[in-house]
């Protein structure tokens, strides 16, 4: 076995070893939480039993991966096509107000006689794509910042990370709330506000992945081997960051859906006739005892969406962490 050589003591950057998560560095906590450190588990078990085999199983990860992909693609397609196919509209007056579910419309009608089920589906579509949009922007912006910080090192890295840490230390949803309130309620502003508060996660994840990968033997081997720096960066480092980012992103889908819903509940999403699940629930609160379905249906729709997103996220994590 390898007797500890001095070199380990000397590396000032190898932060991940001794770094325990603080409230601000959620990346590590979430990584543990949702990834369950399966790879580490398996490695330890392997060593103890002297096996050369993965206790985690190739088969299971393949299946998880497929589950995740099917779910994500499936939800996207259904939500994209269904409203169009059924020609659902969010403001059509379908019938008399406050019709009970299963009488005429599937889920009844609301205070203005609109089809609750139709509005719910449209709302789910909006939530889904809004969440995907926010996460994509967050990953893009955060990832870029993380890459720059990780590869530059020195002052640039310190500055960017101080900024990121400070941003992480603030409560995201609250700041988003304030921003939207200031800019005026609209879907676009809400998306911008939430994306603005979400990128720090990814910046931190990407940056710490880059730093840890840069110290790995295979990167050192590449440097000794005379490969050019851009080549090392893009071929030998960046692909290694992808899995961590994807894990975080896939798990975030559910959370973003809920945060957006919360904001819209408070009136900070698209204004009135728009079918947004949070807003619909808020409007339905007034009639909670007379026509509970008006409030419950959109909230339940959110729940279903978030559950599916979480399952997909968990499965993706399983597959990627292997």
């Amino acid at each position, binding site marked *: *076995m*390898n*007797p*500890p*050589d*001095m*070199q380990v*003591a*000397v590396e*000032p950057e190898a932060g991940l070893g001794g770094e325990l998560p603080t409230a601000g560095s959620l990346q590590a906590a979430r990584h543990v939480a949702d990834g369950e450190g399966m790879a580490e588990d398996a490695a330890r*078990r392997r060593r*103890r*039993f*002297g*096996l*050369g*085999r*993965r*206790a*985690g*199983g*190739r*088969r*299971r990860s393949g299946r998880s991966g497929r589950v995740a992909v099917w779910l994500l693609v499936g939800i996207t397609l259904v939500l994209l096509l269904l409203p169009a196919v059924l020609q659902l509209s969010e403001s059509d007056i379908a019938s008399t107000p406050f019709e009970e579910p299963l009488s005429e419309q599937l889920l009844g009608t609301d205070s203005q006689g609109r089809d609750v089920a139709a509005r719910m589906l449209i709302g789910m579509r909006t939530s889904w794509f809004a969440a995907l949009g926010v996460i994509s922007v967050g990953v893009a912006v955060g990832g870029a910042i993380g890459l720059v910080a990780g590869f530059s090192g020195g002052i640039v890295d310190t500055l960017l990370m101080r900024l990121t840490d400070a941003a992480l230390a603030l409560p995201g949803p609250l700041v988003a709330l304030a921003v939207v309130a200031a800019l005026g309620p609209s879907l676009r502003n809400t998306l911008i506000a939430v994306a603005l508060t979400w990128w720090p996660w990814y910046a931190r994840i990407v940056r710490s992945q880059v730093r840890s990968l840069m110290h*790995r*033997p*295979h990167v*050192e*081997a*590449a*440097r*000794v*081997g*005379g*490969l*050019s720096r851009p*080549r090392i960066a893009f*071929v*030998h480092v960046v*692909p*290694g960051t992808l899995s961590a980012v994807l894990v975080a992103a896939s798990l975030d889908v559910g959370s973003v859906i809920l945060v957006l819903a919360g904001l819209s509940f408070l009136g900070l999403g698209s204004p009135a006739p728009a079918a947004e699940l949070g807003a619909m629930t808020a409007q339905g609160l007034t009639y909670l005892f007379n026509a509970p379905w008006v409030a419950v249906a959109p909230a339940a729709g959110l729940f279903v969406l978030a559950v599916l997103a979480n399952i997909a996220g968990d499965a993706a994590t399983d597959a990627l962490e292997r």
Partner: protein
Amino acid sequence: MSATSSSDARASTRAATDMPPVASVEDLHVSFRVDDGTVHALRGVDLQIAQGEIVALVGESGSGKSVLGSCLLGMPPRSSETTVSGRVEVAGVDMVDDDDRAHRRVRQELLGAVFQDPLSSLNPTMRIGRQLTERGADIERATTALRDAGVPEPERRMKQWPHELSGGLRQRVMIAMALATDGGAEAAGPDAEKNDGPLLIVADEPTTALDVSVQAQIVAMFDRLRREHDCSILLVTHDLGVAAAVADRIAVLYAGRICEIGPTSAVLSNPLHPYTVGLLRSRLSIDGSARPVPIGGSPPDPLHPLRGCGFAPRCASAEADCVEVLPDPMTEQGRTIACFHPSTVPVDLRTNAVASTGMPTPLPKDGERTPRSDPPGRPGQIGHLARPVSALRLEAVSKGFDVGRGSGRNRLHAVSDVTFDVPAGGATVLVGESGCGKTTLLRMATGILTPDSGSVHWPSGGHPPQLVFQDAGASLTPWLTVRRQVVERLTASGVPRAERNDRAMDLLTKVGLDLRAARCRPKELSGGQRQRAAIARALANDPTLLICDEPVSALDASLAVRVLDLLEELRETLGLAILLVTHDLAVARRIGDEVAVMYLGRIVERAPTDEVFDNPQHPYTRGLLDASPTAEPGRLAPTLIGEPPTPFDIGRGCSFLSRCSFSTEQCETERPELIPVTAPQVACHVRPFAAVEV
């Protein structure tokens, strides 16, 4: 030889007086499910451990030896669907039945455990003292145990945290924990002192993660502890040398079954089972006359155990009955053997030759080439002098690092004033323990680290030297195929597109990998294959010098030998120079023309290989040699005390002062220079071993 005869005598005395064995294993079968199937870890093992004896359980990775140790502790592997059948008794208590409470009590009062990695085996958030007394021992017993285990200043240590101690100290703490049982109420009478402590200590690879000199101290300590506390020890190890140093009996395990058991000296000088023979012959030793012969074939698959003898596919004397039927162990005259065709001729450890002519060369594995059967001539000292061009030349190279922050800031003098060269086509081995600076030196030799002072040259020109790492798997990019990684290097070297693929395949074939392996990603390959892939990739740059950082220390003996053979071959065919860094003197003996010994950032001795081993001049070199385990029973007599320090404050005098038994006043005030200018060189004022000049 006196040590062995006394332990032999002790063993037979025990048998004669018919004392009940401290632990006995009967027909133990252990299997458990993993995702790919069921692992059959142990398939019918019988073993007995008498009171006060040290039994070494020897096996390679995957043999099931750790599982056996765990079962003795009453802690079989926990996973879904573990099946355990058979009997494991410790002091009369069955350790594998359902009575968890009884097991716990036995563990608390009668058993002790020492595991491999002292870094992770101690709870980092608990003070040492607390962890020692947890079992029920009081503070006094705990402190005594620490002292017994050789921990200096035991009272102070009790209050410290694990991460404040070095690796060797931590392992001693583990041993102290094993000793500090809940002796409590039972001990009474004049024998109380002697009977305190555990009945049996299970030590699972206790020294593998330690430096050689520390390993020797700990192994010697096992012997002392056994005598002082009259406890038995089960020493689980892959290293026959460690077993030879201290065990009374050796049990060899392969594919979950016992191959042979017998008194140490008997097993080592007259092995009966072909696997034992193979182990002995494939062992790298510091005694250089024997060329190690690797066992052919590949390790057994615990998911699919064979119907017959597990070793049959790799056994040169296997016949039809071996493949069909599992041989049962048979005991006769104190020796147990499970083989239909045991070897009957003694092995001469000095030449690895087997007297009878009936032993053909071992079978090669798929995708690997046949190892050469005759040792290549060593390009000797004369050749070295005749080739003035060096592949690598270091002149007065120094490098230091600033560590810590604020008030704790310190300068680590990793490398201080090192000068040497590696001749073109030559092989120099750099030997040293942890903290000697060898890794830093290597990185400067490859050019990715610049020295603070001094210079690094590659006079023979050509492409810069390439690096082969210890952890081959980690040195290969995980998401690229082997072929792509080799081709990438060729591209960077300017090889025209049309030739790249052919050159890549050529290189891969040279190291013994086939097309199938080339298309794999690193994690799909075995340890040995990964090392070869890393070598092939390094060769793609067409270097004149190959620098290897502990290339074989993580591999099993047979694999290690094969990789070393490959390096030797490449030297011959490509005229490659090699600079190899290792802590294992046996590796140095095998492959180096010249050996340079490093201590605390300096070279303390440098000479042609045979001279270093036959007539070491520096006390440190001699200490390392004394500490290196050999397959001769009971030989281990470590002379080096203490642990390798880290080079922070280097005083004016000799850096080896703190561990040297021969130092004089001059050593304290004047730093010894490495003289003379060319090898053989030594940096010592005293030179206690200098031969009388005639």
